[in-house]
């Protein structure tokens, strides 16, 4: 019986069938469910690693040790793991290893839309791209064979639509797979220049062999149809194409690095017009053009955002959509926002009222950048807040340092904020760093991390002590505050900003979705007192809204969890407790 599985579930199942026994990841949309699913399979050691670099190093070590292993990460996570990845291509593997890169065309949940197929060319790795959940499973399984046959890690490149779409999967068997023998082989695994030089030769030889393999692999196939139009495509876009133009000739690539040059030449010779359909960068198209073959691609389609069935129809068939009913009403947007009771809200509201520059980071709390909180100046990558804050303060001087903070989540701090904090102490910065400690990795769906004291399987482990860590780094001033106690929070931030030394404020309270405290009190707005100043509205909480008719605030009892923030920001004591 076939099962409905997401692409990520398919990858996990494929890895399980391939005999993976070690899997590691740092959570990141859209890749998170690959390893969270693998953790549910018996006999697979799975872990949330502190970051993607460590995850890949764990998978690499497992491979050296003779196991089949997998590391999964979102596209930008590969940047973090790029250092080990490039040299892993030199050492090659012992047990097969697959690195999942989950790209995010359209930036549903990311800070950029880089096309990680570029890494395949750059790091000289085979890149495999499935187009549905069945292929996600089958190609993952095959990727392990490729990895061992050609002695190299394999990149499985997927996209958000594939990761989070469900389709039917026929499960396969799970053969017994003993560990490969472990033999010390320093010439292969110790990348001193003297060893790395011959390994580079081996890499080039492997790429030549992979180019031959690309011509025969079942990953690449031609579906002949009308030869007036030949389309070369890969990934989810293949499905969009089949949906709207099933009659054309299609060269479907499952191995997109290296490309099957001869296959593409033969295909192009037999079609009148050749078009490449690939989301994001013209990775395939550029190589085909370099071979002197006439091909269209990015002259018809943008390298920005996702493709869709209607886009392909519009560009290749000149079809327009049927006229849709036209609404005569303005439809306000519905942006995401911090949850009612979210501990981050108090911090951002306080920082906004203090008018300090907020050097931000990646997590739920990045929503503090949006109106009405509107309390973030910069956000670039995981862990950037701390280095960015030191840099901006070194550039603008001490006065600026007293009016700016770095804000970073607990999981993000562990991911890559720690080294930045060391830099601040070492190079005598005076930055105030606020760690928003909500005891989870909230944004990606509440994954554990080293400071929660629980593993991916929920087992208790030794908890990373953030205060002790900061102390060991050399931070002399460490304050722990409840972010819902606004006066104390504000006073603490003020004190630490004025200090000509670095300090860390840990704003500690569990994620409101994780620890649901019973609603203790009910509030109401005394409309006689409320003067419509909107300070409570600026908290951006679904628990309280603006009542235009009366120009006052009003509670939404269904949403309010009585976290107690709005009575604290009201300067007129207009928010009162309902007496039972």
């Amino acid at each position, binding site marked *: 019986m076939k099962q409905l599985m997401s692409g990520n579930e398919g990858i996990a199942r494929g890895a399980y069938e391939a005999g993976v026994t070690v899997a590691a990841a740092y959570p990141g949309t859209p890749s998170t469910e690959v390893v969270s699913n693998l953790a549910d399979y018996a006999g697979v050691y799975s872990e949330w690693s502190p970051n993607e670099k460590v995850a890949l190093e764990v998978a690499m070590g497992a491979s050296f040790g003779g196991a089949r292993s997998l590391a999964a990460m979102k596209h930008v996570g590969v940047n973090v793991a790029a250092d080990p990845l490039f040299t892993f291509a030199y050492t090659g593997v012992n047990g097969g290893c697959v690195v999942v890169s989950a790209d995010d065309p359209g930036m549903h949940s990311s800070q950029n839309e880089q096309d990680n197929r570029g890494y395949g060319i750059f790091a000289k790795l085979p890149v495999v791209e499935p187009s549905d959940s069945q292929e996600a499973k089958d190609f993952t399984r095959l990727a392990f064979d490729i990895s061992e046959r050609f002695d190299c890690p394999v990149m499985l490149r997927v996209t958000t639509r594939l990761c989070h779409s469900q389709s039917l999967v026929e499960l396969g068997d799970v053969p017994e797979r003993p560990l490969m023998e472990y033999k010390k082989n320093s010439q292969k695994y110790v990348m001193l220049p003297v060893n790395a030089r011959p390994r580079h030769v081996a890499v080039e030889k492997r790429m030549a062999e992979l180019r031959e393999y690309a011509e025969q692999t079942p990953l690449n196939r031609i579906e002949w149809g009308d030869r007036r139009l030949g389309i070369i495509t890969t990934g989810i876009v293949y499905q969009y194409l089949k949906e709207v133009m099933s009659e054309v000739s299609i060269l479907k690539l499952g191995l997109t690095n290296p490309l099957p040059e001869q296959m593409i030449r033969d295909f192009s010779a037999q079609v009148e017009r050749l078009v490449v359909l690939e989301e994001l960068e013209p990775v395939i198209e550029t190589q085909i053009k370099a071979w002197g073959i006439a091909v269209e691609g990015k002259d018809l389609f943008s390298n920005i955002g996702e493709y869709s069935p209607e886009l392909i129809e519009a560009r290749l068939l000149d079809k327009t959509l049927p006229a849709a009913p036209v609404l005569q*009403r303005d439809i306000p947007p*519905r942006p995401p926002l911090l949850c009612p009771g979210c501990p981050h809200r108090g911090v951002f509201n306080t920082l906004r009222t203090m008018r300090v520059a907020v050097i931000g980071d990646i997590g739920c709390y990045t*929503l503090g950048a949006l109106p009405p909180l509107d309390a973030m100046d910069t956000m670039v990558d995981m862990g950037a807040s701390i280095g960015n804050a030191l840099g901006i303060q070194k550039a603008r001087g001490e006065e600026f340092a007293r009016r700016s903070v770095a804000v970073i989540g607990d999981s993000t701090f562990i991911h890559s904020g720690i080294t930045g904090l060391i830099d601040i102490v070492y190079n005598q910065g005076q930055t105030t760093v606020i760690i928003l400690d909500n005891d989870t990795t909230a944004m990606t769906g509440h994954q554990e991390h080293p400071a929660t004291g629980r593993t991916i399987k929920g087992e208790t482990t030794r908890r990373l002590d953030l205060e002790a860590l900061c102390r060991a780094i050399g931070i002399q001033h460490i304050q722990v505050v409840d972010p819902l106690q606004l006066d104390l929070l504000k006073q603490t931030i003020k004190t630490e900003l004025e200090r000509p030394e670095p300090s860390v404020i840990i704003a500690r309270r569990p994620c409101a979705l994780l620890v649901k405290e019973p609603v203790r009190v009910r509030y109401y707005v005394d409309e006689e007192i409320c003067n419509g100043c909107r300070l409570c509205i600026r908290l951006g909480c679904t628990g309280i809204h603006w009542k*235009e008719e009366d120009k006052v605030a009003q509670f939404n009892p269904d949403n309010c969890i009585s976290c107690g923030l709005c009575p604290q920001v009201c300067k007129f004591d207009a928010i009162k407790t309902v007496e039972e």
Partner: protein
Amino acid sequence: MTQATRNILIVGVGGQGTLMTSRILARVAVNMGYDVKATEVHGMAQRGGSVISEVRYGEKIYSPVIKKGDVDVLLAFEKLEAARWIPYLKPGGKVIINDVRVDPLPVMTGKAKYPDDIAQHIAELVPDTTIVDATDMAAECGSAKAANVVLVGMLAGALGIPGDEVEKAVAEMVPAKALETNIKAYRRGVELCK
């Protein structure tokens, strides 16, 4: 078995249970022997933003994403979200609107106005529109918590899915003591959209 492809778009606000509903529908379609694909938006959108999930079933499905203008049934857990996705509806398509208003942030802060008559306005533009207060109806059946099951029932009614298939799926997903109420709520939903 011949069945033209059916495209269902389920929209709402994060936390309303749209994903649960699309998963029930997808599971039922699988049990009925169809090829099924479904897609959903995760991540940032879950934090109180718009959420959408798409379910497609039929003899052979390629794209998990519904082509714009190809939606057979649009099920909206919230009125404003119904309006947002009307342009995706097929000419002659059906709209099911849960008569619930959840103010988006720009409305809560007074920066934008919620179009009060939006459900009626959609009904004027789209002839096959059914508006229901699923919470009220579920409460009549015994528990307001079964509101989503009323909507599942309406969807099943609109798609002509045999009742026992869905009831099996509902039985698997709700606790035993709530089963009777849920089945009642489901059947009320079906009646509304037969």
